[in-house]
Every structure is written in structure tokens, then in C-alpha cells.
């Protein structure tokens, strides 16, 4: 009871925060810079979940929370929500991306070729103990004999031409009219825009868990990775008075396409495609998310229903609700207790079946 009843609760919470910050040590620009320079993948993950591309702010958020990632994401989201939406960037196709890595599992070789780019996929996961003994480790890549192209078409485009995937019409919605899940509530049935946006800002761990459940057997989908891509995207804006398009800069993006076993009309079966993209380089998240994008069309197991997937992979909401159970709940508890004592007191105890204990427990939550 002390943490509620004690007078001076205000002083206590201030000191508790002070203690957390004191243990982290001095916050400085230097510390923020080191995080930004040395942990790009962590920065990318946090920026993706916060849906704001600002490496310096992400590094500050990580520094300020000591790497408590849900807190970092919340800091960035709370900052983002104070910012006005000034302009809408032009939509991009995969061909427009400056792609540094693009691999496909569906074919041995694909138009444009397999480009490994930077990856730990084939590394031996061995700790470099010599670093702890004071040695420094640096790596230098050899230049390729010929430069690879800077952009690659989507494999799905080739599959559509070949009649393996259904033809689609490009959505002509103007950017300012695309539903924005950061400005509107997520409602069900969900629009595709909200679905892809929610996956893009979803919790990496949560997306992985539900995507994995689908891959492992709870989904009807056996995925083949059509392509996974790491790239730089130009943020193209239109000048409000001259109407001239210009680049506001580049952002790191990742995207993934998966295809599944054929379905549809037996006379003309087609593959089905799942897609996902996010800010920053985060392969595991986009692969799992594209799996969920496809599974969510099926609506069988809870992990295939949009409401289950999108609500429960929201990092700020999920983590916030989880930790809120630390708050005092003694009023609700007292209310249930009163009902339970009444039931006991009336001498109904012997009549109450064993299973009812479970129901009571549920009611007490």
C-alpha cells in the first residue's frame, strides 16, 4: 500500500525517475552520436516501429532510455504526434529504389540477378573475443569487376507478365487521400492501406511471433520468398508554389514479397502474393509481415484475422497495456472480493463446482 497511501507520492516518483537516469550516467551529444553511428540496425528498427525517419532522434531516444526499446519507440511516437503533416511524398515502385540487396528464393536467377549486398546471413556466428583482448577488427570489401545496376524491377512484375500472378490495377488514389493510420483510428473491416501501415509500424517481435506461427503450421500458407529487398528511397515532394518535384532526401527502406501455393480457379490457378515494407532495414520483420499480409486474407485461425494481428502487434499499445498492470487495481479487486465473500458466506460453497474457480478468476480480472 505504501506506493499509493504515502504522502509525497509525487516526490517518490520524481526520485525514482532520477535514480533510473543517474544509473544511466551522463547524457551527451557524444553518446547520441556513438549510438547513431554504431547501431544502424537498432536505429532502423526503432524508427520503423515509431514510423518516423529521424536517425538522430532515434539515437537520442535510445540513449535517453538506456536502450529500453518500447520506451524509445514511445518517445519517438509522442514526438511525432506533435508534428503537423505538411506534405505528401510521391508513391514509389520497387524499380525506383536504389537497391543494395535483393534476393529471391523462388528462382535460381532472376531478371537483374541475385544481389547479396550487406548481410550476416552466411556469417559464422562466433564472438570476436580478440576484441575484448584489445585488438581492433576492421573489414574491407573488394570492388566488384563491374558495378551492379542501382535499381531492379520487382519479381512480381515478371510473374504478372508470365500469367503466374493475377493482373492488378495500380491504385490511383492521390497521396493526400490515402488513409493514414497515424491520424485515424484503425477500424474493421480494415482498409489495405491501414493494414500495410500497421504492419510497417508493428512491433518486430510481435510481427515475428504471429508470422512464425503462420509459417510453422497455423497458417494454410507455405511461403516462398519472392524477394526481400534493402534499398534507399528518395522522398519526392512537390513544391507547393512552383509545382516542381524535388527530393527531400533519402531514407532506408526494406520490403518483402512472398508467394504461396497456387489457388483460385482450377482452370486458371494463380499464385498469391503477400507484401510488406517498412522504414529502415529490418528483413525479419518485413518477411514475417508479408506472410501476415497474405494470411490475413484467409481469416481462419486468430493469427490470420486482421483484428487479432494488427491490434496485438502494436508496440506502444501492447507494451503500455502490459506494464499498466503495475498500477494499483485495489478498487476493482475489492469489488470482486466483495462478491466472492458474499457467494462464500451464503453457504453455496459446496454447490459451486470446481470449474467455477476459473470463472471467478476471470471475473476478477
Amino acid at each position, binding site marked *: *500500500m505504501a*506506493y*499509493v*497511501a*504515502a*504522502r*509525497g*507520492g*509525487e516526490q*517518490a*516518483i520524481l526520485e525514482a525517475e532520477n535514480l533510473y537516469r543517474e544509473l544511466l550516467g551522463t547524457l551527451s551529444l557524444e553518446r547520441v552520436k556513438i549510438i547513431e553511428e554504431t547501431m544502424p540496425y537498432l536505429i532502423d528498427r526503432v524508427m520503423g516501429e515509431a514510423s518516423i525517419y529521424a536517425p538522430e532522434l532515434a539515437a537520442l531516444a535510445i540513449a535517453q532510455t538506456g536502450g529500453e526499446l518500447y520506451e524509445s519507440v*514511445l*518517445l519517438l*511516437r*509522442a514526438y511525432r*504526434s*506533435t508534428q*503537423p503533416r505538411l506534405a505528401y511524398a510521391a508513391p514509389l515502385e520497387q524499380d525506383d529504389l536504389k537497391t543494395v540487396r535483393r534476393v529471391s528464393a523462388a528462382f535460381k536467377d532472376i531478371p537483374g540477378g541475385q544481389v547479396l549486398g550487406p548481410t550476416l546471413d552466411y556469417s559464422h556466428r562466433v564472438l570476436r573475443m580478440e576484441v575484448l583482448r584489445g585488438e581492433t577488427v576492421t573489414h574491407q570489401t573488394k570492388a566488384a569487376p563491374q558495378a551492379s545496376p542501382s535499381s531492379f524491377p520487382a519479381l512480381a512484375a515478371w510473374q504478372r507478365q508470365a500469367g503466374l500472378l493475377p493482373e492488378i490495377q495500380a491504385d490511383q488514389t492521390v497521396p493526400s487521400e490515402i488513409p493514414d493510420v*497515424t*491520424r*485515424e*483510428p*484503425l*477500424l*474493421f*473491416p480494415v482498409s489495405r492501406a491501414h493494414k500495410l501501415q500497421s504492419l510497417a509500424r508493428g512491433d518486430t517481435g510481435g510481427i515475428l511471433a504471429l508470422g512464425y506461427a503462420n509459417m510453422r503450421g497455423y497458417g494454410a500458407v507455405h511461403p516462398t520468398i519472392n524477394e526481400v529487398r534493402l534499398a534507399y528511397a528518395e522522398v519526392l515532394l512537390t513544391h507547393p508554389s512552383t509545382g516542381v518535384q524535388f527530393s527531400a532526401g533519402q531514407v532506408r527502406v526494406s520490403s518483402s514479397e512472398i508467394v504461396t501455393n497456387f489457388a483460385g480457379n482450377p482452370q486458371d490457378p494463380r499464385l498469391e502474393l503477400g507484401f510488406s515494407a517498412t522504414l529502415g532495414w529490418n528483413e525479419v520483420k518485413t518477411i514475417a509481415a508479408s506472410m501476415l499480409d497474405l494470411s490475413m486474407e484467409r481469416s481462419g485461425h486468430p493469427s490470420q*484475422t486482421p*483484428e487479432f494481428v494488427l491490434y496485438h502487434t502494436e508496440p*506502444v*499499445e501492447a*507494451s*503500455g*497495456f*502490459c*506494464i*499498466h498492470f503495475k*498500477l*494499483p*487495481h*485495489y*478498487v*476493482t*479487486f*475489492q*469489488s*470482486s*472480493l*466483495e*462478491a*466472492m465473500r*458474499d*457467494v462464500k458466506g*451464503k453457504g*453455496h460453497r459446496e454447490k*459451486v*463446482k470446481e470449474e*467455477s474457480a476459473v*470463472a471467478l478468476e476471470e*471475473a*476478477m480480472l
Partner: protein
Amino acid sequence: MRLSELTKPVQDHAYAFLDEASKRELRRKILKGICIPGYQVPYASREVPMARGWGTGGLQVTLTLVAPHSTVKVIDQGADDSVNAANIRRFIARVAAAKTTTDACEATLIQSRHRIPEERLLEGQVLILQVPEPEPLRGVETSSAAAAELHADADYGMMWLKLYEQMVRYKRIIQGASYPVLVGNRYIMSPSPIPRWDVPMLHQAAHLTILSAGREKRLYCVPPYTEVRPLEFDDVPYQIENVDGMVCFRTGATHKFMNELPQEDGSSLFELSDSGYGEKILTETPLGETYYDSEGRFYHDGYLRQ
């Protein structure tokens, strides 16, 4: 003329933190909620500098309504000095420069989690309840799309069945807090996890109640002088928590909602859950009328059946 002369100095955030577009959205959604008592209105629910599930829904409503001349009271479980209430109050005072109070009669805005003050709120006062789960049907229908259809059709059979099953198993309705109510004879609403003791206070109340769930992105309202009836069967009256024999060990008050404080000898002490009310008794501050009198009679005669 220079551009810098035309602009205002940079501020870290707008007055009361939320930008004007967010506040406008909330005001519109609140108006809609007032027009359709008990109906859950979806809203964008922007992130605020506090964790989801910690009162962000209530906070967004408070920040939208607060003005420099407001007087704000924040309580959690009835207590003004609960750590999270203290934190929310500190934040509101910091970003809105509003006056704060622990006296329910003095406040123009009361943000609360899990309690309604014992003293009757009056016209012009606004009670903002934090809501973890706005959907009263969640226990019988997990899909919010399907639940919305049930509300549209006023198809509440499953709720009645749930209460009936409790009757069959336990010989009484065992629902603790969050007791479902019918608002304006139309929508079933969760009153938020207030105890059953507090639920009647919403009925034909003089004040406006706004209930807001930040994480679930829904808000709903009980306008002044609206019918609010807990679900009850003709032959099974609604039961508030029994507080007979409980005496507040600090103030001697009876027939108010109490905190039970377990003692080492196996017994329990009781204290007023409404700490602001308790403080007024101890400092001999004039008290407002209460919803329940010192004999435990509710102020609307006949509302609570025996």
C-alpha cells in the same frame, strides 16, 4: 519585413501539448458522443508522453478541455496522491498551467481512474473516466466489428445470458467492477472499472461524464440528466458492494466505498477510498452533499431496489 518577424518563437509543443488539429478532432468526437449517449465514437488517439494503458485516453480529453482558468483534480482508485494520478496532474499543470485541487467540489475537470467522488458533482463539472476496455461486449464477442453490429441491432441477448449464467452458478451476479449499464434506454455501456457502488452516480447526474480509452481509441459520453440503468432482472435487483459495518479508521466515516487494509493479526482496517473527501473531513472543510447519506441511502429514492 522579415519572415522571422512574422513567426512566433519556436515552442516545444502547443498549449496543453496536443496540436490544434488533434484537439479539434477530439472536440468533434466528444460532441458526437454527447449526442448519442453511450455510443462508442472511434477517434485517432494520438500518442502522448505517457504509456498507453496509463490514462492516455482520459488525458487526451482533459488536455482538449483544459484552459488556463480550469481547476483540475486527478484521482486513481479514489486517491489524489496515487503515483500515476500525481504524475498525470503534474503533466497537466506543466503543459496547461491550470490550477489543481484535491477537492471534488472545487474542480471543473476531474480525471479519474476506477472511482467517482463521493460528493455529488454539479452542473458545469466534467468527469473524465479513464477506460481500459470500452467494449462491454468484449467478454461475449471478441471481434470489435461483430460487437459493433450487435450494438447497432441492440442485440444484447448474450450479455443477459452471461449474467443469467452467473446467477445459475453462484446464486448471484458476480460481476465486480465494470458492471454493464444501459444508457438512454439504447446502448449497453461499460462504465469503466468503477465499483458497483459508483455506477448509480451516473444516473440522472447533473454533471457530464466523458469516458475515454486511449489504447482502444474509443470515447463515449453520459450527458447530464441521462438514464443510466445497470442490467438487472425483474426479480434480481442490482447489488452494490456491501459496506455495512465498515468504519473508516482515519475519519470515522461510514457508508462510503472503503479500501480494505489487511492487518498482521488477520483482521482488516478500512479507510475511505475517496482520499479528497477524507481529507476534507479531517480538516473540517465544509462537505458537499454525497450520493449516499450516512445511513447508506442513495439520493435517488427507489433507484436501488432491495
